[in-house]
Every structure is written in structure tokens, then in C-alpha cells.
């Protein structure tokens, strides 16, 4: 394929070549010379004072090189894990931000909190020695749920934070909302739970620290979505290593979904231990360890109301959410249920007034942070449940009520009452097409046919919008971000004309090596096969902020195209000199620099060569070489959106929900590689279906033990419970990103839980059920059916 492959084509992925051969390099695959292995002792209690930690037996065990406790780290001036985004409450006071020591000091606060780290010659030895550590715990009562944690007299996760309240935050115009509610013809209200999820990328987290005494250089290999940010957070705040003496490498990473976009304690501990011991130290999480140490997602309890006028038009929305932070603030923890949640509550609708209050609450559970969609699926679920309920209670068709309230295409840009301004979109177009593709017209016949077989069939719909492409730095910093959110890319043109791109985003399944190469191939006219994308190594890529929030193409891709523009500009100067024309007369098209209106031209390859062999070259005014870097800071978020339909069947005898059809029409803006976008949507939709039907991070209320702590107890979506998904794009280009792209990584996960639950509730409508909490497991549904039938019988 020695050809240009540009935007809109679906070349097969470059990265596949190594993955299908088993030749990827994941952190767990790496061995460093003389490497040691570490294992953690983690707290079996949800809440306890650490009276003493006696490591003497462990230290004497075979193969053990060192055992470290929280006190050891503290003595060595190791800092706590920093929070990357601070928020302030209604009263203007900053959130409570208690210290987060990498290994617990004085108190453990969740099952899984690290108590000690054992370093030994082999994994077996480290794990065996960890068992020999004697810990004297003074066990305290624990609290795991947000409602319980706020009750008077609840166990205090922090001795000095009496009410377990991290922050009482709000957004919107409370007075306007009150006024609108007074005018309402109807108020729909719902109390709902957004279930705790455990992201479980298939590759468990892992880290290797290394230190070179001779140069003072540290290296950390880690399963991270953002190595540069880890370098910043860990280097500056935790280990106090100057940036130029710390290299962070995130090689092939086996899925992230947000779970790997935080700076984790283990990264700092292996790096620090390597410095102490002068030998590389490796740690690889076992899956069961991941369950109790990877940040979890969601976990909201919400009360919401929608005021509607007599014509079914929305007047105002009021939302109160309690969001679980877990025991410590993870890197972006407080930002997710606030800034990434409340601004999305307008959905794709005109809702003149919105007021949202969020209480961020500490509990004795694993820290909670972003998981694919992060805040936006939670917002969509609230909005769409309310809309469904309003429709039903007012006797309006649920698709019709959406149409009545949708923002029409012509009304964009649209300023919502909750900060964000949507630049572009066509929700009606998405809904119309999805309705057609889902054969909504034929649904009642399918429902009747199912009923004849004794099954309940339901049709669900959701529409959504998300804010992604994180993020405009000025806006984000105004909202509490402690870093910029731009991206950087370097286009390195080699003397042969081949290109290496160095980019600050991270590819862990998204296909960037392919998509970004397409952008460069089209822009510079360089054959697709002559372009390589480099990422994930702070020593190779100058700066970057990584991959999360559907930002890679939107922000990174924009930086890349800006860098490409600079290359072209320099190429035009070289060409102008060689073709004896003015720069303004040089045009660049299809990989050739030519003098406008003539046939005098130079190929990109010729120009690249002469940049490095500058015989005929304007050396007086231009440096040799052809490499350009660009930064891009977006001017707004991007707002992908869409409409999804789910059709399910329930077997009333077993409570099993079977997903029969799934249809999604999404607006992700300009599509670079349709094949990859489809793949992202498939994966995202299935993760959302997982939330709706299967996945649930469950804690025992009194002991604080994680009950769903393995793949035996935490139900992951499997091949046999997923339907074929019908997809179609309906793109409106983004108005402000260079290529019109909007991002697609999270769409599926945002749209699908609401669609599936809409279908479940629809199926149970004959029994008078108006709301079902996720996940709709057989047990849950069977109980609902039984109770509803009993109630009907009693009436």
C-alpha cells in the first residue's frame, strides 16, 4: 500500500501487525536486568486504626530484599497522591482534600488500602512474605453507601471531617428553577441509583521502577493512559524527582477506559523502591487485586424532577445527587460528578432553567473516579429517565415528547443554562434515522408476538449529548483544573520524506497509529505506510496530556494537523527558493509544491531531502531540517450526540433480560476512519449495556467487604449475551475543530444504559412498573415482577 490513505478511508490498522502475532509489549511483558518483584499487603478491613505493622518475619523470609510501610515512605519525605482537579462548594470554600499517602499511615480506609510493600527476588517469595507481616488493626465501623455516610452519627472516614462531606457543590439558577416549577402543569420525578462500576480493562495494572545511580535517572514503566501527567504528578508532588531526571513509559496498554488515567500509588512506590534498592522493581496486579485497587466508577444516588407545561414542553429541571468519592480523592475524583455531570443535564433539549446540587461524599470504599463516559452517562441517565416518565405520566408518546423538546438543527450554536454552548448538532436527524433503522413502526407487532410466547417485550430510546475533547484550558482551569488540557504533536520528516509523528496522546486500543497516519498521509501526501506514530514515552515525546475524555483525535489530532501546517509552510519556503518564486506563489497540493499557474514543482520528498542536504537552500533565512511541533488548545468542548434504540425481552419465569436489537445513530462529526469509529461505538455500547444489565460493584453494608471482587462475582458482558448492533453515522461537523471531528470514544457508553433501561421499564409497563434501577439482573427483575404481581393481586 504505497499510497496516500486519507480521511474517510478505512485502512486496516497498523497496530494489528504486532498484536495478532502476540508481539505487543505490555508492561507485564518487560523484564529489566537484575529485576526484583514486589507484592502488596492490603487491608482486609474497610476501616481500622493501624496500631502496629511488624515486618520482621517478612524481612527474614527467603528471597526478601526489603519491606516498606507507610511510615517508611513518610520518613523519606514521600508525598501524598495529588488531586488534579479541585472544586469549590456552594459557600465558596474549597473541597476537603485530605492527604492520600501511597501506603496507609495510621489508619486504613478501605478494603484494599495498601499496608506494606514487600520486595523480593521472585513473585512467590514476595507474596509468601507479605503473609508473614503482622498487623495489629483496631477495627472501626465502616460506611460504604453515600446515604449512610451522610447520616448523623455515621462512622467518620476522616477523624477531622465529621460529616464525611468532601464538597457541597451546585450549578445553575435555583430561583429560576423554583419559579418554573411553580408554573408547571406536571412534574415528573424520580429517585435513582447509578450503579458502581469496576472498569476492568483486560490488562491488569502493572509498573516497573528503575534507577540509575550513575546518572540519577529514574524510569517508570506503567500501564497508563497519560505518562506525561504521571511524570508531572509523581515527579513534582510525590517523589520530588526533577522532570528531566524522570522518564515515564507507557508502552502497549491493554485497555484503559479511564481506569488507567490516574496517578496510582503503586507507580510511585516501585519507583521510590527502585531508588532505594538500586535494582528495578516490578509489580503486576492480580485481577483480584485490581478489583480492590483500581479506581471505580459512577456510584450516585439521585433525586431529580422535571417541570413540564401542558403541551409537554420542558420548563425546568432540578437534580440532587450524592456522589461517592470513596475513601480518598483519586486524581480527577471530585471533577467527575460535578463539572463533567451537571453541565450535561440539558441533554439535547431546550430546558430553560436547570439547578443541580451535588454532594461529594467520603466512604470506606475504593476511590471513585472517571470510567468511560465519566459523569456524562450519569447525566444522560437522569435526563432520559425523567423524559420517559414525563411522557408516560402525561400520556404522550416517548419519542414524540423528545421531538417536541429537542434543540432544532437551526438553533445551533445553542447556549444551555449550565455553562456549555453546543456548537453543532442535529439530534432530530439522529432520532428520525434511528427510529427508522430500529423499525419502531413494527415494534407493536413484535411485542404482541412475544406476548404470545409469554414474554414481555420492551422498546427503549435514549438521546444524548456529551461534552468531550477535554478541554479548553482556560475554561477548565476556571473550573478547578490544576493543569492545562491542550495537546502537543511533532511531525518529524526524515530525509527520505518518511514521517515519524511524536504525539502526547496515548493509544491503548483506539487505533491512533492508523487514524493519525491517515491525517498526515492526506495532509502531506506521504504514503500511509511511510508514517509511524510514536507515543507513550516521555523521553521521546516532548509533552502531552494523554488520552481520556474522547480527546485524542479532537485535541491531539488538531495539534497534529497544526504541526503539519507548519511543515508545509517551511516546505513552501524551501520550494520558493528552489523554484525561484515568492513564498506566496507556492501552493502545496497532493504532495507537491508548485508555483501557482505553472508546471514548475518539487515533490514533498525532494523538499524533505533538500532540507537535510541544503545545497540549494535559503540558509541565510531558514534553518535546515524539517521537523515541527505544535500545541493545540481547544476553544470549546466538542459535543457528539445521538439517538439509540434498544429492544429487549424479559422471561417472567426467570427474570432474564435478553437484548434482541440495538440501533444507534451517532453524530461524531467528521469521521477519519469509519471502521475504527464503528469499533469504538461497539465497544462503548457494550460497556453501557454491561452497566444496564450485568455490572455492579457491591459492598457489604456492614463489613465494607467488596462482594463483587472477581470475574466470578462481577458480571462482565460476554459474547453470548450481546446482540448484533446496527450503527449508522449522522455527522454534523464540529464548528471549531480543525477537521470538524468531535470524538467517539465514549458515545456508546453514554447513550446505551438509558436506552436499555427505557426498554426494560417499557417491557414491565403492563405490571405498572415505572422505574428500574441498574443493573437489570435476573434476580432484580424477577423480584420486581413478583412484587408487582402481588401488588396487582392485592388491589
Amino acid at each position, binding site marked *: 500500500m504505497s499510497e496516500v490513505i486519507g480521511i474517510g478511508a478505512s485502512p*486496516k*490498522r497498523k*497496530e*494489528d*501487525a*504486532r*498484536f*495478532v*502475532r*502476540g*508481539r*505487543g*509489549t*505490555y508492561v*507485564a*511483558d518487560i*523484564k529489566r536486568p537484575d529485576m526484583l518483584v514486589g507484592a502488596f499487603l492490603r487491608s482486609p478491613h474497610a476501616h481500622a486504626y493501624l496500631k502496629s505493622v511488624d515486618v520482621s518475619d517478612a524481612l527474614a523470609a527467603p528471597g526478601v530484599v526489603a519491606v516498606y510501610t507507610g511510615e517508611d515512605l513518610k520518613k523519606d519525605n514521600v508525598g501524598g497522591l495529588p488531586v488534579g482537579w479541585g472544586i469549590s462548594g456552594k459557600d465558596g470554600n474549597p473541597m476537603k482534600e485530605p492527604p492520600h499517602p501511597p501506603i496507609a499511615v495510621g489508619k486504613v480506609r478501605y478494603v484494599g488500602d495498601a499496608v506494606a510493600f514487600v520486595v523480593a527476588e521472585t513473585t512467590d517469595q514476595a507474596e509468601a512474605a507479605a503473609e508473614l507481616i503482622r498487623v495489629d488493626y483496631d477495627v472501626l465501623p465502616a460506611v460504604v453507601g453515600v446515604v449512610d455516610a451522610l447520616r448523623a452519627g455515621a462512622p467518620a472516614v476522616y477523624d477531622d471531617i465529621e460529616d464525611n462531606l468532601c464538597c457541597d457543590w451546585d450549578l445553575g439558577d435555583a430561583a429560576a428553577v423554583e419559579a418554573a416549577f411553580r408554573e408547571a402543569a406536571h412534574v415528573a420525578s424520580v429517585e435513582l441509583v447509578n450503579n458502581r462500576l469496576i472498569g*476492568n*480493562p*483486560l*490488562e*491488569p495494572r502493572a509498573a516497573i521502577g528503575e534507577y540509575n545511580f550513575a546518572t540519577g535517572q529514574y524510569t517508570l514503566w506503567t500501564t497508563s493512559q497519560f505518562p506525561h501527567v504521571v511524570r508531572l504528578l509523581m515527579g513534582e508532588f510525590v517523589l520530588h524527582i526533577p522532570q528531566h531526571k524522570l522518564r515515564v513509559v507507557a508502552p*502497549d*496498554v*491493554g*485497555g484503559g*477506559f479511564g481506569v488507567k488515567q490516574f496517578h496510582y500509588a503503586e507507580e510511585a512506590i516501585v519507583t521510590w523502591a527502585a531508588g532505594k534498592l538500586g535494582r528495578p522493581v516490578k509489580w503486576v496486579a*492480580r*485481577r*483480584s487485586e485490581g478489583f480492590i485497587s483500581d479506581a471505580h466508577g459512577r456510584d450516585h444516588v439521585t433525586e431529580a424532577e422535571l417541570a413540564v407545561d401542558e403541551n409537554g414542553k420542558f420548563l425546568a429541571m432540578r437534580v440532587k445527587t450524592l456522589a461517592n468519592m470513596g475513601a480518598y480523592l483519586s486524581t480527577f475524583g471530585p471533577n467527575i460528578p460535578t463539572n463533567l455531570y451537571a453541565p450535561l443535564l440539558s441533554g439535547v433539549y431546550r430546558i430553560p432553567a436547570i439547578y443541580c446540587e451535588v454532594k461529594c461524599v467520603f466512604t470506606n470504599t475504593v476511590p471513585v473516579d472517571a470510567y468511560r463516559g465519566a459523569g456524562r452517562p450519569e447525566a444522560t441517565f437522569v435526563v432520559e429517565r425523567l423524559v420517559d416518565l414525563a411522557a408516560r405520566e402525561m400520556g404522550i408518546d416517548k419519542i414524540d415528547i423528545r421531538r417536541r423538546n429537542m434543540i432544532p438543527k437551526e438553533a445551533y450554536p445553542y447556549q444551555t443554562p449550565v455553562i456549555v454552548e453546543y456548537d453543532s448538532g442535529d439530534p432530530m436527524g439522529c432520532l428520525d434515522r434511528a427510529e427508522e433503522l430500529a423499525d419502531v413502526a413494527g415494534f407493536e407487532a413484535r411485542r404482541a408476538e412475544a406476548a404470545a410466547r409469554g414474554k414481555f417485550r420492551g422498546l427503549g430510546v435514549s438521546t444524548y449529548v456529551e461534552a468531550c475533547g477535554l478541554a479548553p484550558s482556560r475554561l477548565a482551569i476556571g473550573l478547578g483544573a490544576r493543569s492545562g488540557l491542550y495537546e502537543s504533536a511533532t511531525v518529524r520528516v526524515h530525509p527520505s520524506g518518511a514521517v515519524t509523528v511524536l504525539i502526547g496522546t496515548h493509544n*491503548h*486500543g*483506539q*487505533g491512533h497509529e492508523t487514524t493519525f497516519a491517515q491525517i498526515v498521509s492526506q495532509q502531506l501526501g506521504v504514503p500511509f505506510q511511510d508514517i509511524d506514530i510514536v507515543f507513550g514515552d516521555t523521553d521521546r515525546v516532548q509533552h502531552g496530556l494523554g488520552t481520556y475524555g474522547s480527546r485524542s483525535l479532537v485535541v491531539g489530532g488538531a495539534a497534529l494537523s497544526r504541526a503539519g501546517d507548519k511543515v508545509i509552510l517551511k516546505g513552501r519556503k524551501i520550494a520558493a527558493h528552489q523554484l525561484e518564486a515568492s513564498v506566496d506563489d507556492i501552493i502545496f497540493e497532493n504532495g507537491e509544491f508548485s508555483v501557482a499557474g505553472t508546471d514548475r514543482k518539487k515533490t514533498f520528498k525532494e523538499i524533505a531531502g533538500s532540507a537535510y542536504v541544503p545545497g540549494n537552500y535559503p540558509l541565510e533565512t531558514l534553518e535546515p531540517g524539517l521537523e515541527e511541533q505544535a500545541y493545540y488548545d481547544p476553544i470549546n468542548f466538542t459535543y457528539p450526540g445521538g439517538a439509540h434504540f434498544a429492544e429487549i425481552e424479559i422471561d417472567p419465569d426467570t427474570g432474564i433480560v435478553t437484548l434482541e436489537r440495538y440501533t444507534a445513530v451517532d453524530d461524531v462529526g467528521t469521521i477519519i476512519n469509519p*471502521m*475504527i469509529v*464503528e*469499533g469504538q461505538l*461497539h*465497544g*462503548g*455500547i*457494550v*460497556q453501557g449495556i454491561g452497566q444496564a444489565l450485568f455490572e455492579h460493584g457491591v459492598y457489604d453494608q456492614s463489613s465494607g467487604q467488596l462482594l463483587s471482587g*472477581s*470475574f*466470578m462475582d462481577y458480571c*462482565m*458482558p*460476554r*459474547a*453470548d449475551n*450481546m446482540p*448484533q*448492533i446496527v450503527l449508522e453515522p449522522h455527522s454534523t461537523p464540529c464548528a471549531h475543530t480543525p477537521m470538524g471531528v468531535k470524538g467517539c470514544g465514549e458515545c*456508546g457508553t453514554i447513550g446505551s444504559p438509558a436506552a436499555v433501561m427505557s426498554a426494560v421499564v417499557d417491557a414491565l409497563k403492563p405490571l405498572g412498573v415505572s422505574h428500574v434501577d441498574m443493573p437489570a439482573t435476573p434476580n432484580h427483575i424477577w423480584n420486581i415482577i413478583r412484587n408487582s404481581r402481588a401488588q396487582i393481586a392485592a388491589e
Partner: protein
Amino acid sequence: MEIGFTLNGRHVEVSCKPSTLLSDLIREQLSLTGTHVGCDTSQCGACVVHLNGDSVKSCTVLAVAADDGEVRTVEGLCAVDGTLHPMQQAFHENHGLQCGFCTPGMLMSAIDLVKHIPDPTEAEIREWLEGNICRCTGYQNIVKSIIAGAAAMRTAS
């Protein structure tokens, strides 16, 4: 213990403990890291290899079980010159992988499926993959890949 077996067509002799898992032997001692470990409860299937021609979860098999036997890992699927096995090619062409972590296990399971059912239906494929978790793809393109890979394997044989 000393054990010997054929690994991707060549004979290897190694010493291991009676408790060593086949996955650890392959990854740690023999440095073939294409076989992945995604769980500790025998649920995810990232570790699937062929032992004496059948797919097994190598995290759940003792290394000694391979003694005198034949083991094939994902690294042994393609030709020496890198030419892909038809199933690998099908995964590539149908975008059957994203992060690649489940892929080795998916490939090994899929090839074993085709051995048992040369022309599997979508339902049969989905059922066969009960023991293989993929967190990225939603399975749709994996199923598509296996249908294509099975067809290519039938043509090749």
C-alpha cells in the same frame, strides 16, 4: 522437575516446580509473552494456548502437564516469514481487536472452534467464546472475524 515438550514446533527442556503454571512457564521462563494473563479465576481466556491440539487456559494448567506434549502459543501461529495464519488475517481484516490484550486467547480459542465446527454459526461462535472476555470490542467484530477466519481455514485445508 525437568520437563520437555514441543513448543511452537521446537523441542524445549526446562526445569520448573511442580506447582508452576503453564502460563508462568511460557511467559516468565520461556519469555513468550504473547500469552496473556488477565485474571486469577480462570475466567478471561487471555491465556488460552493449545496443548496437544486442544485449547486450554494455560493459567489453569500445571506446566508439568505439558511434559512430552505439544504446546502452541500465539507466537506459533504465523509462518517464519511472518505470514499470518488465516485466523490472524481475519482478525486484522475485520477489526477484531482493539487493545490486543484478549487477542491471543481469542485466536487460539477460535482456531480450536474451527477444528471442532468448521463452519460455525454466529450463535455457536458466541457460545464458544463464553470463556473469553474482551473489554474493548463488544465482540461484534470478533464474531465477524471468526466467521471469516473459519471460511479462510476451510479454503486453506
